């Protein structure tokens, strides 16, 4: 099912949780809504589900205006952050609930419900646990029951709110892979919310990066990591440092001095670069500062460098240096970014 979100605005007591958000989701796509808390990602998910209603704007499921329908009518599968399993119902009763509450005209017969439940348990690899209560399951098992329950109603789209948030690191990794396979098998249009960029980048076809009620960038993992389109995306995804610079006659100047890199048009702005996109150099035109800390990170080292700022608090940057480079605590390091982006002020 294709989902179209048109100019959605959502206010809570005059506070705009979402401000003019538009997004097209293709059928069968796996989309991550990524952002810090308060960015509006969960609000957007709840609006798609019909758990909240937009102040302005529309949401289309295919050709149908979903904003005309209540949550019950939208037929979406929603997996809640804390799963929201019905604790007085067994696993089987939980999964069958959505079928049981249908009006008698469209409700499948008991035997059919039973079969559907058992198929779903197979699919989420929980066969044999149908008579357990949620309380008797592990976190990962509850997760999968919640997913099976959402799938039981044959939803048009599947929505997951922080699906791995409440799990420990190891289970989280396993379930992540499993969810990707599950998605590839069932082909449902799926949207999930996360604040964990690793999760979003690894799992999703496209990542929607959100901040302060707006979409900052939509793109593949490579797009948002390698071609960030805003200072927020650059600093939110991966590690990065930034410095105020000017561009004059094609040369990038920091504190009025050329630093050995060039840019097209003249402007003033912020120079962003990642720790790994840096080379050490002996040349005069370069950034330089004092190494204040040095730590080992897997096969390389990260040097923390303070760049003097005319008596103000120094600029703090992090660069990745080869293991045996002559970078010592307290010494001066000179470097140039090899890949960077300048965001105009």
């Amino acid at each position, binding site marked *: 099912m294709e989902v179209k979100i048109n100019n959605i605005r959502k206010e809570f007591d005059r506070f705009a949780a979402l401000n003019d958000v538009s997004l097209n989701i293709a059928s069968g796509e796996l989309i991550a809504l990524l952002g810090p808390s308060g960015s509006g990602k969960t609000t957007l998910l709840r609006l798609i589900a019909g758990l909240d209603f937009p102040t302005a704007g529309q949401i289309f499921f295919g050709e149908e205006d979903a904003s005309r329908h209540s949550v019950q009518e939208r037929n979406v599968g929603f997996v809640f952050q804390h799963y929201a399993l019905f604790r007085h119902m067994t696993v089987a009763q939980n999964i069958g609930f959505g079928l049981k509450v249908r009006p008698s005209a469209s409700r499948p017969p008991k035997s059919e419900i039973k079969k559907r439940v058992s198929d779903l348990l197979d699919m989420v690899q929980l066969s044999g646990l149908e008579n357990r209560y949620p309380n008797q399951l592990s976190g990962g098992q509850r997760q999968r029951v919640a997913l099976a329950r959402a799938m039981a*109603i044959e939803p048009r789209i599947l929505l997951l709110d922080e699906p791995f948030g409440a799990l420990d690191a190891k289970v989280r990794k396993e379930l992540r892979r499993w969810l990707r396979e599950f998605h590839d098998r069932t082909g449902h249009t799926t949207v999930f919310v996360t604040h964990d960029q690793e999760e979003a980048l690894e799992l999703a076809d496209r990542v929607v990066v959100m901040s302060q009620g707006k979409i900052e960038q939509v793109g593949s993992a490579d797009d948002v990591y390698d071609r960030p389109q805003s200072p927020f995306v650059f600093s939110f995804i991966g590690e990065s440092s930034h410095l105020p610079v000017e561009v004059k006659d094609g040369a990038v100047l920091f504190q009025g001095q050329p630093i050995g890199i060039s840019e097209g048009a003249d402007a003033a702005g912020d120079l962003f670069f990642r720790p790994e996109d840096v080379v050490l150099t002996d040349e005069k035109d370069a950034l330089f500062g004092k190494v204040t800390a040095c730590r080992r990170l897997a096969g390389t080292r990260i040097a923390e460098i303070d760049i003097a700022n005319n008596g103000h608090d120094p600029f703090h940057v992090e660069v990745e240096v080869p293991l045996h480079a002559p970078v010592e605590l307290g010494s001066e390091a000179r470097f140039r970014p090899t890949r960077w982006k300048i965001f105009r002020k």
Partner: protein
Amino acid sequence: MTASATASSAGWRLKQPSIIPGFGLTLGFSLAYLSLIILIPIAGLLWRTAELGWSGFFAILSDERTIRALYVSFGTAFIAALINVVFGTLLAWVLTRYRFPGRRLIDAMVDLPFALPTAVAGIAFASLYAPNGWIGSLFMPFRIAFTPIGIVIALIFIGLPFVVRTVQPIMEEIDKEVEEAAATLGANRFQTIFNVLLPGLTPAILTGFALAFARGVGEYGSVIFIAGNIPYVSEIAPLLIVIRLEEFNYAGATAIATIMLLISFAMLLVINLIQAWSRRRYGNV
């Protein structure tokens, strides 16, 4: 300490080791006080009953007036507890979910039956529901006071906070996500409440019912004024105990007290079983 004593203390130990002092003092005092005030007097009651022997015990209990009194006490307490389950749950819902002017006041007032002396409640109900009282006169010629219905009314008052205060905290803990989950699965509000929320509250509601019922069976002060106390009709068991005592019929009082006590113990057991069952199955009450 000998080796065998060490070995046995490792196998069975009254208390887990702790650096906090005062265990012996506080537990010792508690047990001594508990024994003096509660256990020895109750043991005395049971001892007196044992002296009656089975035949003496049954002779008293099979007395028509005793049977009727027990029937009135248990019957009215049961009906009142049922009514309290309905209205107590409704009240708990309204208090936890809705915001309306006066909510705080009403929330505080629910505890009134805990704090108001039973005799005060008793005379207030008797004068209100009497045929010439504010409420009683509305229902004439149908009589409320001085009939078993009057007893039920007093017991509704007494039992209400037990249901509300047992159900309310559990209701407050209901995760909104659970209701939203039901809605995304297609359940309408009615189905969500009756298939999802209320079953989840069953252990709390049952506990509240049992507490209100247990309290109602033994209630005396608020009932005797409104009951009319007509033998065989509206005479409650605790009143019959008092009457037997005033007749210096200690055996009669003792036997009725013992059967009520045993039923109280059974109720306590039931309450504990409900809670244990619910904890085992749902993780908490």
